[in-house]
């Protein structure tokens, strides 16, 4: 299952594929429409699509030709959850830092009071 995530991230590590995904987020497109803005062969576009399909990022539902390419939204829910996990780890770390700062504040306040009483 973790391999699934690795495949998704590997698939998205390429700038052309990221761009395809961004464009598909606006709506389904045929392979020809997808290929239009790129200076690469249709064959290369199919190669990129295959990587995205194998990772489950896009699908080409069966139907009459030309079959449109569709973005699989669930994949991004998965990534969101996963970035959220990372965020929570950072939050946990920073809560420990909160505690350290509270300690510092306490020590420094009591030191100030001591100084105050001497003066």
């Amino acid at each position, binding site marked *: *299952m973790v391999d699934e995530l690795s495949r998704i991230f590997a698939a998205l590590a390429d700038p052309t594929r990221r761009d395809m995904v961004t464009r598909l987020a606006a709506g389904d497109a045929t392979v020809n429409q997808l290929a239009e803005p790129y200076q690469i062969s249709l064959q290369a576009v199919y190669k990129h699509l295959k990587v995205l399909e194998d990772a489950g990022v896009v699908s080409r539902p069966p139907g009459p030709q030309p079959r449109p390419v569709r973005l699989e939204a669930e994949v991004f829910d998965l990534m969101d959850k996963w970035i959220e*996990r990372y*965020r929570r780890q*950072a939050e946990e770390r*920073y809560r*420990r*830092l909160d505690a350290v700062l509270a300690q510092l*504040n306490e020590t420094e306040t009591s030191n100030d009071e001591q100084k105050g009483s001497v003066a």
Partner: protein
Amino acid sequence: MSAIAETRIEADPNVPIIRITREFAGTPEQLFRAHTDPKLFAQWIGPSSLETRIEEWDARSGGSWRFVSTRDGEEHAFRGCFHEVRPDRIVQTFTYEGDPDGVALETLWFEDLGSGRTRLRTQSLVDSFESRDAWLKSGMEVGVGEGYAKLEEMLADGTV
């Protein structure tokens, strides 16, 4: 005590950067100390289930650092250089010794918000999207955290 804003995180879509922002009830000077005093740093950097042992610590511009995290006898070491250390900003490198080719360039900013509050902004730049995502995935913290185990469960039972 006023409520503290939760940690915000951003994975930049155009450059392999992770940004994290958080506000703290402490002065910039205290935040700076919590990042540069090894005794204080060791208290918060690792999860409570890990023990952090500082092996090397020279928090000056051009200095270096190394610490080892231990859990159940398993050790993971991290090291890097303090490129620049000054009261409002720290620039440093970060490497997990288990993956010595991966080096992150980290910048930390301590922004004074007044009334004893500080905004900490951090930015980690890595050399590719692939390694950025691998870092995100590893959670940078060693071992499989509870959250990760939970995610695996969710993946396994189809919740996700």
